[in-house]
């Protein structure tokens, strides 16, 4: 097998997707998808292990040597992101069984799982490939399938949300492609490594600067960087619970990865620092943290509340990129991982509430915390992690982020990170207040705890939040290696 694992990680879900689409209704499509996701998670684990021990994996598709052929090039950075995506998928699928049976019409279930697998293919493909145009292809695979997935939401607004995302996402992808085209016109290559070798000699050209700008704006749209985040709250709110969990924990993370790759692998570090890009990232990140957190406080829908919180969390990640130091990049990568854990857990718990009461409005969940203690527990711990309480994963990422800011004596970002955490206390507090301290509505309905199949994956992620808050060997260790590969040598 050897290197073929890196390829199979993309091909297995790709082949499974059309097969699942033609399976009969019932539980078979789910079972196949679940098996595929577990296989992918195992492959991603093996891949990360072999990258950490054996160095960079390079795979030539079709036997064509790079830079002419497409190359999959895996180092600690993308192996780490691929592992996040694959593991989240493997945890989301057991959760999906009951949740989709409740939320998706029977006849659409095979296509639903097919689209979910395609989305997984696209996201994993982005992480694996070392070809800048191939990234666009996989970006479109994952985006198109996620538009379809979001539109399957129960409420009619899901269509509008999906359409909005379709327009914004397509603009983002087009910008990215225009940028790639401009870079190609000057370098004559699409291979990231090759481009990185050629770029320094043409860096002063306006075409390159324009291409760089197009790519950055395009990716910023895809990762919902404030103020380009407008598609995200609606998309997360109206998508089926499973889709929200999966996309919130993976899609924006992969976009952050693409940004890191372009900024630090394809372009020389000095270029990013010479342009206003890094300052802009810090400004946009800070604005995102504060403004999106304020928005989150005033939401009446719990899914939308968490969606705005996601925009704020993306602000933290971009702050780390903006610092452009090794510690800053480490903070971004650690937060990438930890945020997938906490948002995954929180959206799963919210999905469990929706499963029981079919509503995600803040005024309809009063007192539910007592009826659904395990779900409530998951929300409390997930929320604490979001705030960044010591002992949870969220603390680790905030710690490294603050360290990165202090290294540069950047006091304003430090203040913003702390204020952002306080605002998180407020919106998580609102959630907990409604769930536990408000008296339950007396409408005669008895709400019971969510089924075990929903609780197990949720608690899997909750416990991971605590585990990675105490034992940081994996996250910090890998992030350190990854940051070293990306560079980050700004004094």
């Amino acid at each position, binding site marked *: 097998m050897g290197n*073929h694992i890196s*390829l199979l990680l993309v*091909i297995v879900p*790709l*082949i499974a*997707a*059309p*097969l699942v*689409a*033609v399976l009969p209704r019932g539980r078979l499509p789910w079972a196949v998808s679940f098996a595929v996701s577990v296989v992918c998670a195992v492959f991603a684990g093996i891949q990360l292990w072999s990258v950490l021990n054996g160095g960079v994996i390079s*795979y*030539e*598709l*079709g*036997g064509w040597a790079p830079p002419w052929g497409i190359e999959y090039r895996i180092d600690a950075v993308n192996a780490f992101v691929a592992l996040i995506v694959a593991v989240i998928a493997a945890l989301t699928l057991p959760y999906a069984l009951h949740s989709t049976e409740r939320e998706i019409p029977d006849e659409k279930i095979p296509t639903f799982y097919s689209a979910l697998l395609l989305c997984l293919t696209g996201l994993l493909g982005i992480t694996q490939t070392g070809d800048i145009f191939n990234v666009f292809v996989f970006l479109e695979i994952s985006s198109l399938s996620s538009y379809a997935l979001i539109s399957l939401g129960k409420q009619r607004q899901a269509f509008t949300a999906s359409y909005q995302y379709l327009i914004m996402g397509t603009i983002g992808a087009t910008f990215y492609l225009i940028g790639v085209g401009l870079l190609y016109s000057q370098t004559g290559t699409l291979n990231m490594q090759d481009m990185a070798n050629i770029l320094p000699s043409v860096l002063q050209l306006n075409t390159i600067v324009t291409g760089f700008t197009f790519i950055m704006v395009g990716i910023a749209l895809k990762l919902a960087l404030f103020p380009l985040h407008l598609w995200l709250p609606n998309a997360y709110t109206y998508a089926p619970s499973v889709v929200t969990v999966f996309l919130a924990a993976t899609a924006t993370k992969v976009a952050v990865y693409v940004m890191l790759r372009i900024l630090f692998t394809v372009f020389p570090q000095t270029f990013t620092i010479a342009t206003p890009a890094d300052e802009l990232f810090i400004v946009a990140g800070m604005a995102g943290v504060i403004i999106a957190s304020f928005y989150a406080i005033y939401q009446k829908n719990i899914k939308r509340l968490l969606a705005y919180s996601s925009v704020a969390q993306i602000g933290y990640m971009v702050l780390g990129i903006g610092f452009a130091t090794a510690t800053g990049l480490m903070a971004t990568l650690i937060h990438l991982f930890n945020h997938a854990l906490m948002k995954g857990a929180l959206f799963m718990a919210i999905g469990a509430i929706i499963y029981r009461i079919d509503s995600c409005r803040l005024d309809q969940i009063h007192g539910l915390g007592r009826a659904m203690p395990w779900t409530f527990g998951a929300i409390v711990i997930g929320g604490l992690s979001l705030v960044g309480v010591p002992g949870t994963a969220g603390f680790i990422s905030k710690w490294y982020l603050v360290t990165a800011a202090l290294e540069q004596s950047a006091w304003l970002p430090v203040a913003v990170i702390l204020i952002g955490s306080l605002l998180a206390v407020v919106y998580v507090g609102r959630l907990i207040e409604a769930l536990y301290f408000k008296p339950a509505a007396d409408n005669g309905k008895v709400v019971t705890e969510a089924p075990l199949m929903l609780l197990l994956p949720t608690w899997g992620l909750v416990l991971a939040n605590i585990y990675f808050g105490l034992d940081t060997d994996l996250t910090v260790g890998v992030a350190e290696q990854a940051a070293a590969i990306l560079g980050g040598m700004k004094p």
Partner: protein
Amino acid sequence: MRPNLILHVIAKFVIPLIILFALYVQFHGDFGPGGGFQAGVIFSAAFILYSLVFGLETAEKIIPPHWLRILASLGVVIYAGVGIESLILGGNYLDYTLLGSTQIAGQHLGILLVELGVGITVAAAMLILFFAFAGRGRE
């Protein structure tokens, strides 16, 4: 649907030619301009013309919609399957060279099969899209 003699006769005359041209574009794609994507679109155009002239119900009798879904999936599986086959033969994914006795024969066979997969999927997807829009408002 109101019968229209001229349309019917012309359509019946043109449709086989369109399909023939689609097959030409498909299988001549590795020597000249063309390939699976273009061929698939031309192929589906023949069926779209048929359903415009003879009505949606008649067209759906010829190609039932659930077949289309199977065909669309089949194309992707053919494409990916060629890649897997070259993996099994000991090469890298989509390394056509190993598929034939000589390098040229292998490359030839590989691209032919892959383009066939593309053609089938594109034709089926075009028809699925057409039926989805044309069938709106029926139920």
